[in-house]
Structures are given as C-alpha cells and as structure tokens.
C-alpha cells in the first residue's frame, strides 16, 4: 500500500525547478504505471518513494510507515527490507558473480540465505547455468533480467521500476512486463513502473500521467 500526500521536491543545485506530484493512493498488491515525458521528474518521484531523496513538502507512507518519520538508518533498513528497485540502466557489483549479487542483496535486506528462493527466481527469469558468471559476462538481456531479480529477491512490499523497457524491442518489452507483473504477484507487492514508453500502457489499469 502506497499513499502520498501533496508531494513536492526541489533540486537545490540546478535551476530551482520545483516538482509537484499528484497524490498516489494505491491499495496493496495493485500495480500502477506512472507515465510522462523526460524531465517531468519521474525518476525523482521514484527516488522519493524509495526514500533515496527527502521530499520538500508532503508525506509518503508505505504500508502505514511514514518515510519522513524514520531516521536515516531506519530509512536504510526500511528500504532494504521493503523496497525493490529496478534501474533504467543496469548496475551491479562487478567483482561478484550473478549469484553473489543476489546473495548480497538478500543479506542486506536482513533475510536469511534462502537457496530455494534464489534458485526459483533464477529459473523463472531464465538465468539458469549463469549463476557463477561475472555480471559483465552476461548479455544485455540477461543483465536486464538479473536487474529484475535483484529488485524482487527479498519479496519487497513495493517494487519500483525505472524505465525497465526503454531499451528493449517489442517482444522483449512484453516479456519484461509480464515477468515484472508475475514476480509482483508472487511477492504480493505493489509494482510501480515509471516510463515514457507508451507500449506499456495497455498492460496496466492504473495510470498516473505527470
């Protein structure tokens, strides 16, 4: 469950652009698509929801926890436990293998080592036999799927995906969206996708346009 109330954010270092965001009120397990052209603050909103940026005005609550009431450390913990981020451009820890990347994500969320969960996820995402490969040895598609795996491994309450389809062709775009939806279902999470990609629109009932 995600609820935001009169969110505002201002970047101090740039030309003092002030973002005002529409209120979101999303019941648990539901998905939402946030659409908008570049530069309207889509990624900013996502980072606000993830607690990576502090809002200037307004409040965010995720499963009845108000992010602005948490200390820095509590916020880090909360993020680790309940939020899964999937980035526009894939980023991993290069010195580790695929499986080790998953393990460290799992560990930092405070969860115990769950082999079954990891194996299941690896099979779901078609990454079998690649566990011990270094991340830079993976193809772009494989990296994209690993990125999804890293976002959902710890069964977060909220999955936040930033432009997950922008670099993909139509078939892969379909695949990624259905994978995300399926994983969100398994994890019983809210899936929040921000994108400018109009192809995604038809897959979601809830839209917000920035």
């Amino acid at each position, binding site marked *: 469950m995600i609820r935001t109330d009169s969110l505002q954010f201002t970047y101090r270092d740039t030309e003092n652009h002030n973002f005002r965001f529409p209120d979101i009120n999303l019941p648990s397990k539901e998905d939402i698509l946030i659409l908008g052209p570049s530069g309207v603050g889509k*990624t900013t909103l996502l980072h606000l929801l*993830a607690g*990576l940026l502090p809002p200037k005005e307004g409040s965010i609550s995720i499963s009845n926890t108000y992010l602005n009431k948490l200390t*820095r450390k509590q916020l*880090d913990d909360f993020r680790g436990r309940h939020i899964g981020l999937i*980035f526009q*451009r894939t980023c991993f820890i*290069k010195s580790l293998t695929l499986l080790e990347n998953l393990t460290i*994500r799992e560990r930092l969320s405070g969860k115990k080592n769950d082999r079954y969960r990891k194996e299941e996820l690896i099979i779901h995402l078609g990454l079998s036999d690649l566990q011990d490969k270094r991340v830079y040895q993976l193809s772009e598609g494989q990296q994209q799927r690993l990125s999804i795996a890293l976002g959902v491994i710890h069964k977060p309450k909220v999955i936040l995906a930033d432009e997950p389809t922008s670099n993909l062709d139509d078939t892969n775009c379909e695949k990624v969206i259905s994978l995300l939806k399926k994983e969100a279902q398994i994890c019983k999470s809210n899936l929040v996708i921000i994108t400018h990609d109009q192809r995604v629109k038809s897959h979601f009932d809830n839209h917000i346009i920035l």
Partner: protein
Amino acid sequence: MLYLAYKNLISKPLNAFLSVSLLLLSISLAIFVLQVRDQLNEHLENNCKPFDMVVGAKGSPLQLVLSSLLHIDNPTGNISLEEALKIGKNPMVKEMIPVSYGDNYKGNRILGTSNEYLTKYNAVLQEGELHKKSFEVVLGNAVAKKTNLLIGDTFASAHGLAENELETHDEQPFTVTGILKPTGTIIDHLIITNLESIWEVHEHKDTHDHHEEEEEEELREITSMLIKFRNPLGALQMSRFINEKTTMQAALPKFEIERLMRFLGIGFRTINGIAMAILLVGGLSIFINLIKTVKERKQELALLRTYGANTFQLIKLVFLEALFLSLLGAVLGWFLGRISIWFFSSITNNIYGYFFAFNFPNNKELIILVLVILITLLAAILASLSLFKLNVSKTISDA
C-alpha cells in the same frame, strides 16, 4: 561484507599487490633490524657477562674485547703470563682466567685456557670427559656438529686463526675427549684445551722455524687474561692502573660493547628510518588505493545503499579492505623478516658463530604491527569521508 571486501580486492590484484608489497617490505625491514639488534645485543652480553675486564697487549680495546671474549677479531698480541699474574695479587680481583690461542681447526679456534673458563659459561659435558693432558680437547657443540669429530678422534691444528691447510702442526695432533652441551654462547664454537698445549705447539714450531730464535722458552706468554672483580668498581680503578703503569692494556667489555652498539646504532637507525619511510609510502599507497576504490566504485556503493546498506556498513566495507591489506602485509612482512633473519643467521653462524633464533613476535614487533594497522585504518577513515556525502539518487541516475 567480508567476502565482498575480499572480492573487491582481488578484482584489482595489482593495486592490492603494490600496497601489500610496500607494507611487507617496510615491516620485514623494521623487524629484521629490530631482531638483529636485540639478539646481537643479547649474544654480546651473554658472552661478555662472565668477565669484567680483559687484559691483553696494547692496541685497540675494542679489538681486544672482540678477539678475547667474542673470538671474532685477531688478537692484539701476546702478554707475559708472569706479568699478567701480578694483577691477580690485587684483592679486588675475584677470578682470573688466562686464555691463549693462535691455532684453528677448519676455522674453529683452539683456545688454551683453564677449566674455570668452562664453568664461567656454565658449559657442561654432553659426552666424554674433560681434557686432562696436553693435546686433549673438548669441543663446543657447534664445532662437533660442523666437523663431525667424535670422541677419540684426532686432528691436526692449523696455524693462525683463518682456515688454511698449508701450515698445519701435523706432528702434534689433538685428541677429542669430550663434547660440550650447547650453551648458546661463544663456547659452542670453540675447541677448548689447556694452556700448555698451545705453548707446546708453538715451541715445537719454533724449533722448526729458525727465524724466531730469539723467542725465549722460559717466558710463558698468553694472549689475554679475563678478569672478574668482586666489585664492578674495581674494574674502573684497575683498568686505569694497568693502562698507565704497565705494558699491557685493560679493556672493559661492557663499555666496549656499548661503544660497538653505538656505532652499529647509527646503521640500525638508518635502516629503521628507511623502513619507516617505506611504511609511510605503503600507508599512502593504501590510502590512494582506497580513495580510488571509493571513487571508482561510487556507483556500486550507492547501489548497496539502495539495497538497504547504511553509511556505516559502506565504511565498514572500506575498512575491511584496508584491514585485509594491512594484515596481509603485516603477516607476510613478519615472516619475511624472520626468513631474512634466518638467512642472515646461517651466514653469521658460519663466520662469527652467531646464531639468530627464530623467535615468536615480541612486544616491540607487536607495536610495529599495531602501528601498521592503525596507519591503514587512518587511511581508511580519510578515504571513506566522502561516503558521508554520497548522493545515492544522483549517483544512481548518472549511471
């Protein structure tokens, strides 16, 4: 975290190697010098402890101590036994042991002395018995091992103190009657016999070589007299008297050894200074390494933040990397220091009869190791300062 730190390090093996080798070099150098100085000092003191004063022919007092007590240098010359014995009349003298030498067997000095010499160094027999007659000897433990001589074996001595096969006293062979237990002192490297043997060997020689006819047989000579006083103050007074009023010279081992260590101290300090400089460079290299790591991996560190790691966990990661490097450098450096001591020891043992033991870390070394770790941790603190200001959102979006 530990695993990640380790993985991060080995993903940049060259950087890690550079830092570790700098640390290793400086630590091993410092430890080497420390060990050599401590053990050398201990050896010298052990060897000199039984005696307060050495009386010998005029010359350098350091040379006299080195030759008569430590058996490293050549003797300054001979003195007359009769004259030396006069010193013994002084009531302050507790004990007096004459030593005489001039021959060797395969580089091991043959020392003519009284049996008290052995008791002064607490030397006891391992097997066999003490020499009773002339041309009977007991072997120091190391000599026995080196030469493989057994009880009952005979050998011919060579003239002089250096190993040579040319001038041997074949006509008067020595017989081994006993072998001493290891004492950890210079005795281990000596062949001990009575004074008369030394005299007889050379008398014999003199009758052969007619160049030295003027040598008077009646005047017994010794190389030096080792003296123990009842009261250490006696040494000061007596030495002044001997140096001024007689043709002999008196040297105080304690002073001479201190002087020697002072000379060597300059060298030790220089090497220590170099070690410290290398240590600083090592610390600097780790520091630069870490700063580079933090910069290069800014994105990964930000990623870890999105995974729920807090700033302190990131700092811990940097610390662990630094700690890995410093511990590796410290442990390897310690071992290298010990190994070089061991090499050094095998050389000195052959030449000077000085053995440097493979010791466990002592307090001073632990201080060095702690110092090294502190330096690297300091480097880690400085390098991780930027983590406090890490803008996760920006770093991730800029990816």
